C-alpha cells in the first residue's frame, strides 16, 4: 500500500466508507469536511474494495485505500503507516483498531502523532477491557458521537480524564443538505416509515415492535414501509403475517437516495424505536425532509429526539406507546407541524446538526 508523500497528514482508520449505514455516513461526512477544509487525509478502510472506492466521486486531499475485508493485510498496512513518520494525527475510526494502532505507535522510534478515536455507540458501551483501557488512556482525544456514549466510556474507564472525551455528534450529510426540503409536505399516500438494517443481531432496532403496534391501529388504510435489508427479513415478514398485516407492511430492501428522500418527504411519521442507537443519523435525515419522528428514549437517540419538541419518544419495546404515538401524530396536525418545524431547525441553518457545524467541530479537533 502507498500513502501520499508531502506535508504531514491525518491518518484515518475506518471500517468502511462506501456504504449506507450510520458509521459509514459519519465517515463520509467527516471526509467531506476534511476535503473542504484542505485537511490532507489518508484513509485505510478495512472493508471497502478498490472497486467501491473507484466508484465513489473523488475528493480533494483525500486518499482512500481499501482492503476488502482482509484483516491481516489491513493490520500490516496500519502498522506500516504508523511506524513511518508521515502523519502527525491519527484518527481511529473504530474501537476494534485501537489496540493495534496504539501498539504500533508505541513501537514507533521517534515522534508520536496526536492519536484520537471516534466512539460511535454500541461497540464501546461494554467490553472495554484492561488493554483497551490502557490504550484509551494514551489517546489525546476521544470523540464521542453522543453524550450517552461518553458516559458509558467513563463508567468503564473512570481513570480517563473526562475532558479528553469530547461530544462530537454526527450531522446531516452535505449532499443531502444541498437538496431542497419540501415546500409543502406530503403526497397523498399514507404510510409510516422505518429505515434501518434488518440483521438478526440488530433486533434492538425495534422493527418487530413497530409491526405489532402498527397492527393495532384503528385506521387500516395506512401502510408501513421498511427500507433496509438483512438476514432478519424472513423473521420480520413472519411477524407481519402473524400480526395480520402482511399486506400492509412493505419491505422495500435497499433503495437509492432519490427514492429514500421521497419516502422521507411523504411519510406520515418516521418510526424507529431503536434501543441501541449510537446517535441515529436517520433521525436527522427524516427531520430534514419534514417527517415527524418517533424514537425510543434510549442511548444516543435522546441527543437528537427530544420528546414533544423534535419528535415523540417511547420506552423501548413499548408497543402500546408506539401505537399511541402514531395515533397522536395522525390525529394532531398542530403537533405534527410543531415537530416538523423543530426537527428541521436541528438540521438547517444555525441548527446543531448541520454540516457547517460539523465542519467547524472538525476544524477545531483535527
Amino acid at each position, binding site marked *: 500500500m502507498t500513502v501520499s508523500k508531502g506535508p504531514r497528514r491525518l491518518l484515518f482508520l475506518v471500517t468502511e466508507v462506501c456504504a449506507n449505514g450510520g458509521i459509514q455516513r459519519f465517515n463520509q461526512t467527516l471526509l467531506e469536511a476534511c476535503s473542504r477544509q484542505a485537511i490532507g487525509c489518508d484513509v485505510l478502510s478495512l472493508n471497502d474494495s478498490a472497486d467501491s472506492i473507484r466508484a465513489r466521486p473523488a475528493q480533494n486531499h483525500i486518499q482512500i485505500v481499501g482492503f476488502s475485508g482482509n484483516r491481516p493485510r489491513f493490520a500490516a498496512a496500519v502498522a506500516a503507516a504508523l511506524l513511518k513518520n508521515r502523519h502527525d494525527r491519527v484518527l481511529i475510526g473504530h474501537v476494534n483498531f485501537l489496540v493495534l494502532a496504539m501498539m504500533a505507535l508505541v513501537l514507533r522510534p521517534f515522534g508520536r502523532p496526536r492519536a484520537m478515536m471516534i466512539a460511535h455507540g454500541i461497540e464501546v458501551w461494554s467490553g472495554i477491557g484492561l488493554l483497551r483501557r490502557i490504550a484509551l488512556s494514551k489517546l489525546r482525544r476521544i470523540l464521542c458521537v453522543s453524550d450517552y456514549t461518553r458516559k458509558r466510556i467513563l463508567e468503564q474507564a473512570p481513570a480517563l480524564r473526562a475532558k479528553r472525551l469530547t461530544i462530537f455528534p454526527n450531522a446531516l450529510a452535505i449532499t443531502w443538505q444541498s437538496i431542497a426540503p419540501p415546500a409543502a409536505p406530503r403526497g397523498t399516500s399514507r404510510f409510516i416509515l422505518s429505515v434501518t438494517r434488518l440483521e438478526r443481531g440488530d*433486533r*434492538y432496532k425495534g422493527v*418487530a415492535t413497530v409491526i*405489532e403496534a402498527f397492527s393495532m391501529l384503528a385506521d*387500516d388504510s395506512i401502510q408501513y414501509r421498511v427500507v433496509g435489508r438483512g438476514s432478519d427479513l424472513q423473521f420480520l415478514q413472519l411477524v407481519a403475517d402473524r400480526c395480520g398485516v402482511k399486506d400492509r407492511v412493505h419491505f422495500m430492501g435497499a433503495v437509492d437516495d432519490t427514492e429514500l428522500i421521497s419516502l422521507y418527504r411523504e411519510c406520515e411519521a418516521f418510526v424507529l424505536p431503536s*434501543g441501541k442507537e449510537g446517535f441515529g443519523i436517520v433521525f436527522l435525515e427524516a427531520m430534514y425532509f419534514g417527517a415527524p419522528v418517533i424514537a425510543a428514549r434510549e442511548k444516543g437517540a435522546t441527543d437528537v429526539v427530544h420528546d414533544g419538541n423534535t419528535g415523540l419518544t417511547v420506552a*423501548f*419495546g413499548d408497543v*402500546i406507546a408506539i401505537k399511541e404515538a402514531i395515533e397522536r401524530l395522525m390525529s394532531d396536525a398542530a403537533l405534527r407541524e410543531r415537530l416538523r418545524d423543530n426537527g428541521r431547525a436541528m438540521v438547517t441553518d444555525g441548527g446543531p446538526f448541520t454540516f457547517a457545524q460539523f465542519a467547524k467541530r472538525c476544524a477545531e479537533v483535527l
Partner: protein
Amino acid sequence: MCGILGLFSPVGDLPETETFVGALDRLRLRGPDDAGTWRDEFALLGHRRLAIVDLSPSGRQPMESFDRRYVIVFNGEIYNHKDLRALLRPLHAWRGTSDTETLIEAYRTWGVACLNRLNGMFAFAIWDRIDRTLFVARDRMGVKPLYYSDRNGHFGFSSRPSALTLLLGDGNLEIDPEAMRVYLELGYVPAPLAFDARVRKLPAGHYLLVNARGTRRVRYWDFRTIQIDPSMSRRPESELVEELDTLIKQAVKARLMSDVPLGAFLSGGVDSALVVAAMKSAGVEHPKTFTIGFKEEAYDEGPAAAKAAQYLGVDHVHETLDVNSLLDLLPSYIQEFDEPFADSSAFPTMAVTRLARRYVTVAFSGDGADELFGGYHYFPLMNRLAPVLRWRPNTKRHAARLFNALPLHRTKLLAGATRCHDTVALFHFLRSVGKDYPPLVSPDILKSTADSESWFAQYAAGFAMDLSAAETAMRLDCGLTLPDFFLQKVDVATMAFSLEARCPMTDYRLVEWAMRLPVDYKIRNGQTKYLLKKVLSKYLPHDCVYRPKMGFAVPLAQWLRGPLRSWAEELVHDDTLMSKLPLDKAQVRELLKQQASGKRESHPLVWSVLMLLCFVQTHGARRSLPAMDYREVA
C-alpha cells in the same frame, strides 16, 4: 369460574338456538349452577355459571345493561369491583351486587379504557347493540382462557375450543400444522396459536374489537417493557421484604371476595405457604388448606405441607394416595384438555382439586411466583451459560462437537446450549421438551411452518433493554409459559371438578413490582426465589422455607416403563391413528423404544407425543352431550 360462548355475524347468519345450546353444553363443568342464552339479529351469547359472587338471580348471565344497549357474558372475577362502583354513576340504582353488573357499567362509562381499571381474572365479551360491535377481552396475565374463531364471516368466541368447533362445524379437528410443531417442541400451544386451525387463543393482556369492518386485536397491558429499578438495590433488604409481603397480602385480601366457602392448596413449597400466611393476615381465621401426599416418599410433600399447616395454624385436609392411582385421572385429563397438553403435574393438580371440591368452591393457589421471582432451576443456569453465547462462532462449534462426543447426558445438553446464538435461543433450548432429539414432524411441516423459537423471539422483541439472561428467561416464562401452560393447567384441572382457582401471585401490581426488582433479589448464589423466601421466613421456620423444591412431580419415566408401557406402545403402533397426523412414525416409535428400554431418557417428549395421540384419538370424533334446560334472557 364460568364458561362463555358467543357468535357474531354481521349479516345475521346465526344458527338456531338449539344448535348453540348443544355447543354451550361443552362448558357444563365450567359452570354447573346455571345456564343462559341471549340473541338478537347479529349476535348470539351463551353463559354457564358457577355461582361465586351474588348467588341471586340478579347475577345471572348473559346480562344486559340497564339501558339494554350492552349485553355481557363474563367468566372470572373483578376483585376491585366494589371500588369501581364507587367511581361509577350508573343510569339507575344497582340491581344486584355482582361484579358482572359493575363490569358492564364500567364499559358503558369508560369504553375499552375500562380494562386499565380492572384488577381481576377475566375473559368476557360485551355486545354493543347500537354500534354493532363486539368487545372481547382477556385478563392481563391470562388466568382465564379465551379462544376465538374469525372465519367465513363469522366471529365466535369461547372458554373452550371444542365448544367453538362444535358451534362452527361438526366438532372435528382441523389440525394447525404450526401449532402441532410448536406443541411437540414445547409441550403446549402458546397464544395466539391453537391446535385447531380454525381457532386462535386471545393472548393475555389483549382485547378484540369486532364489527362488520373486521377484527382488530390490541394489547392493552404489557409488562415486557418495565425497566429494572436499580434504586431498589440501594434500599435496605428488610424494606423490600416488607413491601413484598404487603403486596402479597393486598393481592390475597382482594381475592377473598366470595359468597361461597374458600380454601387454599398447600403443597409444602414456598408459594402456597405464603398465600396461606397472607390469608391468615387478611383475617381468615382458620383457612381450609388441601394437600395430597403419596405413599412413595420421593413424591410425598404431605409431611412438609402438614408441618407448614401446623405453624400457620390452618384447618388442614390431607389425603394420601398411591402415586399410581393418579392414573385413574388419565381419562379426565384427556377429556378435559381441549388441546394436547403435556404437563404431567396436571395429575396431582386434578387430584388436589378433587379433594378440595368436597369442601370448598374456591381455592387459592401459588401459581405465578416461580416465573416472577425466579423459582426454576434454569434461571441461574441461564446466567451461568450466558458467557458461552459471546464465544466466537468457531469456538462454539468446536466446543459443541467436543461436548457432544462425551458420553454424558449433561454434556450433550451443554453441547446443545453451546450451539445457541442468543439468550432467547438458549432459553428455548432449555425450555423445549425435545432438546436435541430429531424433529418428529414430517419434513413438509418443517419446511412450511416456523419453529417455536420464532414465537419466543417475537415476544422478546418487546423486552426492556439490557436484561440479563435470567431476566430474559423469566419474562419469557411469565409472558408465554405461565398463561398458556401453567395457568391453563390450573384452569382446566380445576374446571374439571367445577372449582374456581384464584392465583394472587398474578395480581398485576405484584407483577409490575416483580419486574422492577433486580435479579439479585430473585436468584442469589444459585439460590432461587431469594426475596420470596425471606418473606416466608417471617412465618415459617428455616427448615420449612429452605427445603429442596419438589414441585408436583409424578414418576412419569417409571410409568412409561411400567404401567403405561403397553398403552403407549398400542398408541404409537396404531396405524390408523398415526396416519391422521403428519408425524415421522419411525422416529416416534424409536423414541418410545429408547424410553421404554431405558436407553435414553426423553419422557417429557414421549409424554407430549402420547398426549397428542390421545387427544386426536379422543377429540377426532367428538360427540355432543345431551342438552339441559336453558333459560333465555328476554
